[in-house]
């Protein structure tokens, strides 16, 4: 592919390009739209047909010197998030023709700063999957190797940036759905702390675990986007009133060498692919050369986190997806059916096999006789996992771990074996269970030239530590 002045731009370069009149928002947006229309990866579900008009408006604002933080900057949005007047499918037949009646708060905040939306990206149905193969609109291919998956569930957002169909994108992360595809596609992906970003306008999967976050090519861009999206929201009671720090300025001012880094031994098992182990070793060597304190720590309940996650998440999924019954909106039946048959027919036609599996698991887990053994036990485990992290974060600032046990796997490899697919989340789910924040950073490639991701974890509402250390690593390795 030929490189030109539009190739692989980050936010800073885009804003500079607009300011210096190297290119306009209209030209840049046209560049992305052309690429999206010729995309063979299936990264997008729909395109915003107003985006060029919006780019033109942005250009006239720029010409008048009225530049907000993202004026004219195009962004791709995971099709789990609502944008008023645009399709919002959740990558499901259930909502194939659904038009969103309002805009998600996180997106509204970006739009208020001038961002323009290229379109909605493909993902696993209702954000449930680790490969993006579970989409009613077909799988997304990994741009680094089209025989492999881009990761999931936010696979389209990750593939779109990696293939330069968009400079930045939003995803959602319930158990790793931003960090894992970021790792598989060689990008920066942030799961903010629970409550940092409003979930209003994000289709609820597991409400106590879901968070919206950015994908980008640099840590700086992630900090810049979180700065804009974070904060309270009267429409989401779980969105925190905690003050939003000036992440972007802190990035320049904070001294990363003062941070203490912990290596949780439970994340460095033999199951880890050797190339990923090497990428981590390289990072650890670098940190030690820079005289950053690196010490071994332990999170004893780590091995139980995935089992707890696959109890808590389906329990919430089975409740949340009960709203999809075709009575008010979405897929419905035209036949004159009684209510029970209506529900069953609508839900059979609207949901994929994976959604059904998770709804059934959740229904079973919450049913009489099993609630204590499964759900209550998992909620207790959640308490001890949170305590594990609290103890460790009293000693160190940031944890360094792999993001995934392997690099991107082949399409179809794990489809028939749901448990093996679930195991792809093993290093990411704990952050959601504990409500802490996590950042995946690209760290070289493996023997097949596939990107490797490393994960930094920090305590709740300590995103500035992730950015500080992440930026330092990014700039120097």
């Amino acid at each position, binding site marked *: 592919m030929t490189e030109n002045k539009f190739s692989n731009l980050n936010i800073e370069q885009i804003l500079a390009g607009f300011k210096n009149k190297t290119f306009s928002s209209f030209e840049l947006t046209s560049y992305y739209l052309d690429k999206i229309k010729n995309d063979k990866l299936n990264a997008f579900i729909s395109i915003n047909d107003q985006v060029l008009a919006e780019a033109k408006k942005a250009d006239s604002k720029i010409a008048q010197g009225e530049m907000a933080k993202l004026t004219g900057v195009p962004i791709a949005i995971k099709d789990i998030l609502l944008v008023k007047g645009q399709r919002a499918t959740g990558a499901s037949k259930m909502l194939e023709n659904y*038009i969103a009646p309002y805009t998600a708060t996180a997106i509204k905040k970006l739009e208020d700063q001038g961002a323009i939306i290229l379109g909605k990206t493909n993902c696993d149905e209702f954000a449930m999957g680790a490969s993006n193969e579970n989409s009613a609109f077909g799988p997304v291919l990994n741009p680094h190797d089209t025989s492999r998956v881009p990761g999931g569930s936010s696979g389209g957002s990750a593939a779109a940036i990696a293939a330069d169909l968009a400079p930045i994108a939003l995803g959602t992360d319930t158990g790793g759905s931003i960090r894992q595809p970021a790792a598989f596609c060689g990008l920066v992906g942030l799961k903010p702390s629970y409550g940092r970003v409003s979930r209003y306008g994000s289709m609820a999967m597991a409400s106590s675990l879901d968070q919206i976050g950015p994908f980008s090519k640099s840590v700086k861009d992630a900090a810049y986007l979180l700065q804009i999206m974070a904060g309270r929201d009267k429409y989401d009671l*779980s969105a925190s*009133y905690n003050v939003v720090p000036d992440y972007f300025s802190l990035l320049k001012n904070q001294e990363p060498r003062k941070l203490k880094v912990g290596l949780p031994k439970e994340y460095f098992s033999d199951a880890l692919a050797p190339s990923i182990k090497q990428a981590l070793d390289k990072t650890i060597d670098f940190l030690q050369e820079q005289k950053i304190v690196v010490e071994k720590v332990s999170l004893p309940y780590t091995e139980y986190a995935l089992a707890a996650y696959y109890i808590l998440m389906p329990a919430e999924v089975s409740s949340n997806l009960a709203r999809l019954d075709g*009575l008010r909106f979405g897929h419905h039946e035209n036949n004159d059916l009684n*209510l029970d048959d209506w529900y069953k027919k609508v839900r059979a036609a609207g949901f994929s096999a994976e959604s*059904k599996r998770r709804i059934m698991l959740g229904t079973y887990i919450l049913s009489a006789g099993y609630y204590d053994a499964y759900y209550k036990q998992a909620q207790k485990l959640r308490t001890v996992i949170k305590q594990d992290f609290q103890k460790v974060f009293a000693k160190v600032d940031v944890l360094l771990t792999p993001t995934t046990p392997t690099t991107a796997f082949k399409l179809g490899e794990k489809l028939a074996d749901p448990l093996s697919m679930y195991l792809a989340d093993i290093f990411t789910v704990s952050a959601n269970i504990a409500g802490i924040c996590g950042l995946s950073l690209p760290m070289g490639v493996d023997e097949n030239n596939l990107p490797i991701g490393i994960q930094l974890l920090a305590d709740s509402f300590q995103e500035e530590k992730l950015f500080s250390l992440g930026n330092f690593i990014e700039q120097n390795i």
Partner: protein
Amino acid sequence: MSLNKEEILKIANLAKLELSAEEIAAFPNQLSDVLAYFDKLTSLNLKNVEPFISELGFSDFSPTGEKSGGKYLLRADEVGQSDASIKDQFVKVEDDYLVVPQVLARFDARRTKK
């Protein structure tokens, strides 16, 4: 724990799902595998641990920004304006009303018999 075909059908019925023949064939093994993975957790002794309930309890502020003094405060229950465009997504509309399938079908059937 493992689930057989009858149990799968019972759960599907509770979850208001109709399953395809392929799903009925595949789900017993697939879901039993996942349940077996949970065994490591159910055998763990967590007798004296309080179950985690909600992240919200840790908030220092109410949703409207008042200091909550450790208590969780709800926002005032005020009637707001809803967006009329929401009706565009309705499955079936009659005179501004949303039309849904007959809910009391069985009760009605009994009455007509008389």
